[in-house]
């Protein structure tokens, strides 16, 4: 995508190939093209592109995927630091949002 890449080494995505049944759901939901099908199973083809949205983990019925999902937004992370809670967009609260 227009050559835009972000920090790749800090991505927390984990894939357990033994639990994968090859249902393709992760390929379907990932908006970053991280997964491909190889030998009837999912394969992490571009781990560095992951933006940790959590769509794959949420939609994997077999628990093969895990990721520290959250909001990739500086304002939300600052709010998390200040309030000591998980970073949140706080959308709908009337304040800044991603």
């Amino acid at each position, binding site marked *: *995508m*227009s*050559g*835009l*890449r*972000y*920090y*790749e080494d*800090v*991505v*927390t995505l984990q894939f357990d190939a033994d639990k994968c049944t090859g249902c393709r*759901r992760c*390929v*379907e*939901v*990932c*908006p*970053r*093209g991280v997964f491909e099908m190889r030998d009837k199973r999912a394969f992490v083809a571009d781990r560095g*592109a*992951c*933006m*940790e*949205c*959590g*769509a794959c983990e*949420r*939609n994997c*019925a077999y628990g093969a995927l895990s990721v*520290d*999902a*959250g*909001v*990739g*937004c*500086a*304002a*939300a*992370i*600052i709010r998390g630091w200040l309030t000591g809670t998980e*970073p*949140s*967009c706080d*959308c*709908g*609260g*009337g304040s800044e*949002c*991603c």
Partner: protein
Amino acid sequence: MGDLTGGTLTAPSPVRPAALDVPKASSELTLGDKLGALRMRLNIGRYRYRVEPGLYRLGEPGPSSPVLVTCNYKLTFDVVRSALPGLDAWLLVIDTKGINVWCAAGKGTFGTKELCERVLKANLYEVVDHTTLVLPQLGAPGVAAHEVQQFTGFRVVYGPVRIDDLPAFLDAGMKATPEMRSATFDLRERFVLTGVELSVAWQLKTLAILVAVALASGVVGLSYSWHSLLVRGGAAVLTALVGLLAGAFVTPLLLPWLPFRAFSAKGALVGAVFGIGLSALLFDSIGSLAAPAVALATVVFASYAAMNFTGTSPITSPSGVEHEMRRAIPWQIAGAVVSVGLWIVSAFI
């Protein structure tokens, strides 16, 4: 399972009784809708722009027409209905408190529970004769497709990322190409999103701070000067605005062509260009101590504003943003301290 009691066998299956009360969603936007969209893009009243959740008719849908799921942010609702002229479908709007699909999915309000409840509440079983729900792909972080199927019997199919691809997706038998599955961030998309970033400029809090800074700039040594208020105060306000423009507008537009991965570094680079230009312009009127303060402040403003654009981009991971912030914020604070220090000292020399 067409209903044979009404119409002829060759006609499309007639609308079922349960569907008669379903309100219609027009595929044409009024002037009010368009002005509303502009207002949203400029972040004016963005958290109070909602439609009533529930089932809507798009065109003249029948029992076999697809069910499309979306959120109740009115801007999204308008984009969806206006992108699909001529399509007959059911539009199931779920309650995300007026938040767009992606952000609501991240929070879980565009989520499994709300979707299941809406399916039951809309009595979809009586309205359609199939068991497929088409969801926007960017809703996937909030919805567990397998759980929706367990609870409601409806199978979730994730449609394309962009609504414009939906007709092609449906025509292809609900198959998406890899392009339809990828979030993009092209120039037009980045441009549209800068309005919300720039909206800091017209928030009351910002205006109050700018006025306070301008008034404080009238202080020269131990006296107060209206001339200094105009010159130094004007310079301070201009610095803030140029920094914001560099970081929240120019940086997002140039994003893929700027070096560095960190948005804060991209912003600092653009801020440096604008800051040096601005301080050169102001050098004669504000002097050799205040001029570098202006340049440095522009860099800091731009870097911080660009860092906040991470929340808007579809490429940044939270781990990455935190990594960036831990490195960038100490520099931003140091730059701000030095800049303010120079600015204050320059008032007394």
